[in-house]
C-alpha cells in the first residue's frame, strides 16, 4: 500500500456527480501529476482531499498514516501532514501573513496556547522565513500585509508555496499552481518545490497544461477525464499530451476508463 492511498473516491458538487471512482497511490519521494481538460474533476479531487465544505464525498477512502482522512476535519488533515496549495488563494482581511504563518506553524507543532516549549520562537520563525523568502524571490514587505490582500496573482501563488515550505507537509497537493503565473514566477515556484522534493515528501500536481511539468519533473502522470483516469504512465504521458492535447478523449463518447490496478 502506498503512503497516501486514494481508493475509489467518488464526490459531487451540489448534487452533481463529479468524481466517479478515483484510485491513486502516492508514495513519499514521488511526484505525481494529474492532468485533464476543464471540468474533468481536477479541482474537485484536490478540494475533496482537503475537506472543502462545497464538496460532498459519496464514497471511497483516502488512507494516510493509518487513518481515513475523509473522516477528519480539514485542520486535522493538515496537522497530519497534508497541504493544499489553492488555485485561488483566499483573501482574509484583518489577519497579517505573519500572524497566519506563525499560528499555522504553532498549530502544526501542537502548541495550543499552554505548553510554551512547543511554541515557535520569534528568532526561529524569522530565520525560517528568511531562507524561504529568498528562494521564492519575495521580500518581507508582504509579511505585515493582510492574507493575500492586494497580492498579485504571482504573489499569491508564491505565498502558497511559502506556506508549504514553512509547514513542511508530507503530502502536498498543488492545484493549478502555474495558472496565471509569468515564466519567472513559475521558475521561482518550481525551484522552491524542487528544493523540498525528497524522501519525506509526496507531491500531487494538478494541472491543465504541461508547462509546469517542464520545471517540476513528475515521476508519474495520470489523465483525468469525466471523473475517471483514462491514461496513466510516466513523464512520456505529458509529452504526448503536449502534442495532442485532450482531443482524443473529448471526441470519444465513452472514453475507455482505466481499472484501478492500471493506474501507476
Amino acid at each position, binding site marked *: 500500500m502506498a503512503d497516501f492511498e486514494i481508493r475509489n473516491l467518488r464526490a459531487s458538487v451540489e448534487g452533481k456527480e463529479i468524481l466517479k471512482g478515483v484510485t491513486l497511490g502516492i508514495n513519499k519521494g514521488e511526484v505525481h501529476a494529474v492532468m485533464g481538460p476543464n471540468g474533468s474533476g481536477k479541482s474537485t479531487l484536490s478540494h475533496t482531499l*482537503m*475537506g*472543502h*465544505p462545497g464538496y460532498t464525498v459519496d464514497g471511497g477512502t483516502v488512507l494516510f498514516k493509518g487513518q481515513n482522512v475523509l473522516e477528519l*476535519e*480539514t*485542520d486535522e*488533515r*493538515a*496537522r497530519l501532514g497534508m*497541504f*493544499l496549495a*489553492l488555485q485561488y*488563494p*483566499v483573501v*482574509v*482581511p*484583518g*489577519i497579517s501573513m505573519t*500572524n*497566519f504563518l506563525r*499560528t*499555522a506553524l504553532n*498549530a*502544526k507543532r501542537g502548541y*495550543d496556547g499552554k505548553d510554551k516549549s512547543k511554541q515557535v520562537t520569534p528568532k526561529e520563525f524569522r530565520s525560517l522565513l528568511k531562507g524561504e523568502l529568498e528562494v521564492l524571490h519575495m521580500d518581507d514587505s508582504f509579511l505585515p500585509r*493582510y*492574507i493575500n490582500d492586494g497580492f498579485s496573482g504571482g504573489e499569491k501563488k508564491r505565498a502558497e508555496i511559502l*506556506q508549504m515550505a514553512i*509547514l513542511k507537509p508530507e503530502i502536498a497537493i498543488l492545484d493549478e499552481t502555474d495558472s496565471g503565473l509569468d515564466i519567472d514566477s513559475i521558475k521561482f515556484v518550481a525551484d522552491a518545490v524542487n528544493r523540498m522534493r525528497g524522501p519525506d515528501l509526496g507531491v500531487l500536481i494538478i494541472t491543465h497544461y504541461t508547462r509546469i511539468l517542464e520545471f517540476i519533473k513528475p515521476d508519474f502522470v495520470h489523465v483525468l477525464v469525466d471523473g475517471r483516469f483514462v491514461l496513466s504512465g510516466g513523464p512520456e504521458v505529458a509529452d504526448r499530451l503536449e502534442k495532442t492535447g485532450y482531443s482524443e478523449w473529448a471526441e470519444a463518447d465513452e472514453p475507455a476508463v482505466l481499472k484501478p490496478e492500471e493506474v501507476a
Partner: protein
Amino acid sequence: MPFTLETMEEIASLHGEPAWLRKRRRSSFDAFERLPAPSRIDEEWRRTDVSGFDPGQYSKLEHLDGQKLVLPSTLPPGVILKPLRQAAQDHPDLVEPRLFSLVHADRDRFTALHAAFFTGGTFLYVPDGVVIEQPVIGQHFSHEGGTSVLPHTLIVAGKGARFNYLDEYIAEDGNEIGYRSGSTEIFAGEGSQVGYVAVQKWGRNAWHFADQRAELQKDASLRLFNVTLGARFSKTRVEATLQGQGADAELKAIYFASGEQFFDFHTLQDHQVGNTRSDLLFKGALQDVARTVYAGLIRIEKGAARSDAYQANRNLVLSDHAKATSIPMLEIDNNDVRCTHGATVGPVDPLSMFYLRSRGIPEATAKRMIVQGFFGDVLDRIPFEHARALVEAELEARLG
C-alpha cells in the same frame, strides 16, 4: 433608598451641592415622574424592550463618588480635573451653563433619572491652547450587584486645546445585576483636538443606559471611540453636533455581544453648518443568542453645504441564533454634500475558515482570528495607545 425626592435631596445635601444643581436635579426628577416609560410604539424603542426594567429594584446608590481618576504625572497649569460635583461647587461658571445642556434630562425617563440622581463622574477643563500629552483616565467602579451606579462626565476643551480622555466602566463582579449609566458631554472648542474613549465593562446582568454627546466648534476635531462589552441590556446613544465650519467628528465603536446580551446603539451626525465632516463606523460581532440593534442618522441641515458624512455599521454574526439589525438613515436638506452610508450583517466567510483550517489552524482559533481581523481596521482608530492596548487585551480575553 428608593428613587424619591427625599433620596435626591439627601444626595444633594450630602455634598453641599449648590442651589442651581439642586434645582436642576429637582426638575430632572419632575421629568422622571412625568415621562412615561418608553414603549414599543416609539420608533427609537421599537426593537428595544425595557418593560422588564424597574429601576426601583436597584435604588441603592453605590458609593456616591464611585470613581477613580488616574492623573497624568503632571497637569499643565490651568487644567481642572476633579469630581464633577466638586467642580459644580468650585467652578459654577464653567459647569452650570454646560451640565445637561447637550444630554437633555427630559429626553426620556432614563436620561431624567440619570440627571436627577447622578453620582460620581468627572469634570475636565482644558484651557485655550493647552496640550496634555498623557491620557487622562477616569475609572468608574461598581462594587456590588443590585445597586445603581450613575456617573457623568463633563469635558470642556478650550480653543486649540489638545488631549485624550478615557472613561472605563468596571464591574468587580462580572455577573452583577443592577442599574448602570455612564453619560458624557464633550464641548470641543474652536480648533481643539479631543480623543475620547469609553469602555463599558459592566456585569453581564446589568441594565445600562448611556448618552455620549459632543458639540464641535469651528475646526474642532473629535475622535470618539465607544467599546461596549458588558451588561445584559445596553442602550447607548452617540451623537455629535457639528456647529462650526471645518469641524471634524470621527465616531467609531466596537461591540462584542455573547450569551443573552442585547445592545442598542443610536447615533446622530448632525451637520448644522457647511464644510464639516463626520465619519462613523460601528463594528460588532455577535454570538450565542445575542441581539444588537443599530440605528444611525446623518442629518445635514439646510445651510450645511459641502458637508461630508460617512456612516457604516458592520456586523459579524457567529451563531445561527444571534441577530443583528441595522437601520441607517439620512435626512438631507442640502444638495451640495457628500454622504455615504451602508450596513452589513453576515456570518463568518466559510472560504476564509476553510483556508485557515487547511493550514492546520483549529476551528476555534481560526474563528477567533477572523473576528480579531474583522475588528482590526477599526481598532487601529483608537486615538491613543493606552486605550488601544486595553481594548485589544479585553477583546482577546472575551474571544476566549
